[in-house]
């Protein structure tokens, strides 16, 4: 606790003295904490796990499933509307962009939903595939133990 955790590039500032004052104040205030008060760090961690997950909800590499993660996303994110004709081109592009924006408004939520589903399906398949491999290994071990196919 005594190690320096504060860096101030000002020779007029006595970092040691500031840290001493901080330690004193923290000690004084921690005594004033109510006994039934929830630990804020623990509350944050619990809420993160509850609302976001513990990181295992992330995409599992398709080691056992021959589908790439990025193929799950069916939203056309690289669709570009550009033009080459000097005068009519920009007008044409504006019209196309307006139409595109209108289509996106109702189509994209469905596509995003489908993409989310695809990712969840990939995760489920990867998980089942891993479970399958684990069970197969277990069967092989049992077969070896009984010296022949079960």
């Amino acid at each position, binding site marked *: 606790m005594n190690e*320096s*955790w*504060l*860096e*101030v*590039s*000002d020779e*007029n*500032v006595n970092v040691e003295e*500031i840290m001493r*004052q*901080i*330690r004193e*104040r*923290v000690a004084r*205030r*921690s005594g*004033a904490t109510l006994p039934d008060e*929830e630990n*804020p*760090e623990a*509350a*944050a961690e619990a*809420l*993160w796990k509850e*609302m*976001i*997950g513990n*990181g295992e*909800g*992330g*995409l599992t590499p398709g080691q056992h499933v021959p589908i790439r*993660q*990025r193929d799950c*996303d069916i*939203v056309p*994110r*690289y669709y*570009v*509307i*550009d*033009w*080459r004709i000097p005068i009519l081109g*920009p007008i044409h*592009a*504006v019209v196309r*962009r307006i139409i595109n924006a209108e289509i996106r408004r109702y189509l994209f939520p469905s596509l995003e939903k489908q*993409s*989310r589903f695809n*990712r969840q399906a990939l995760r489920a398949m990867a998980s089942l595939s891993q479970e399958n491999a684990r069970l197969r290994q277990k069967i092989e071990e049992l077969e070896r133990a009984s010296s022949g196919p079960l």
Partner: protein
Amino acid sequence: MQVHQFHPTVSYGDAIGDQIQSLQHLLRRMGHRSEIFCEQLPIHFQGRVQQIAQYARCSSPANVLLLHFSLGYSPKVMAWLKSVPDRKVLVYHNITPHAYFSGVNDVYLEAAQAGREQLDQLAALTQAGWGDSTFNCQELAERGWTRLGVLPIIFDPRRYAVRPDRQVLKRWQGGVNVLFVGRVSPNKRFEDLILAFHYLKRVRPDARLLLVGSARGMEPYLEFLQGLAKRLRLSDVVFTGHVSTEQLAAYYRCASVYLSMSEHEGFGVPLLESMYFGVPIVAYKASAVPETLGGGGMLVTRKDYASVAELIGLLLEDRNWQARIVARQRERLRDFLPQRVEERLRDLLHSLEA
């Protein structure tokens, strides 16, 4: 020599868009012909930004093409880059490690992963790699770049010469306002700001936490943060969402202290904004943050929330200390003014010739 720039798209108000426009201004002032090329042409930039299809007209092996890179290029852009004979330089603004987006946004997660994979391909396509910071350059070095250089973000004070929004000033001026500016993203560790604020409320019950920045695409994370503030019974945590430049200036004017708990920043433009608006900075020492601060502000090396809160409390009690910090920060800000960066840019371009 012609020095052109490319980025998939350009917009006002984001760090990369502003940097591209500031660089174009500098390059033209230095006597270079300089145009901006995009994949998706923004309608409101018509005449000032051109499509990559038009690049063929000025393409030459004698040119330098600056490729701004922050999230990843489309397959079409990657194919185009392979066909362009110009001397290409990657300007790396950094990519947030994909793990931060796990459970929050799968699209960002995949884009961040793909972007890092593209870095390996781009190493073979470019002559040199420039980063906003040494921190960014280190990653390029790890990925095979040998000719590296730091080209910092240009801070143009004219951009902030606006009248601060009156409504924001009226609502928040006075009292203790702890400010953080940045997109609501898990790498910026907003939960740590809320935790530090929880302890600060014991020190300064009148304190508010103003969190300025868009949460678009990060809705699950925002819900978590709002849930955390509610669980800790903190009613003075304010999420503003996206703000205009006038509103941003007003929030800085209202701020008593700028607190950053971010774990991953390729540069950290809001740190410069805090320096400009005279707001003392307390920041967690991580990624490019200490480099950008360059001796300005105060760095904490441990996330001891109670101690951070007491540190802010002590700082708020001592006006002289605040003034010294602000003066040092202003001194540091000079390194990012256009004149200083122009010298750096000149040296970097000269090194390409060599």
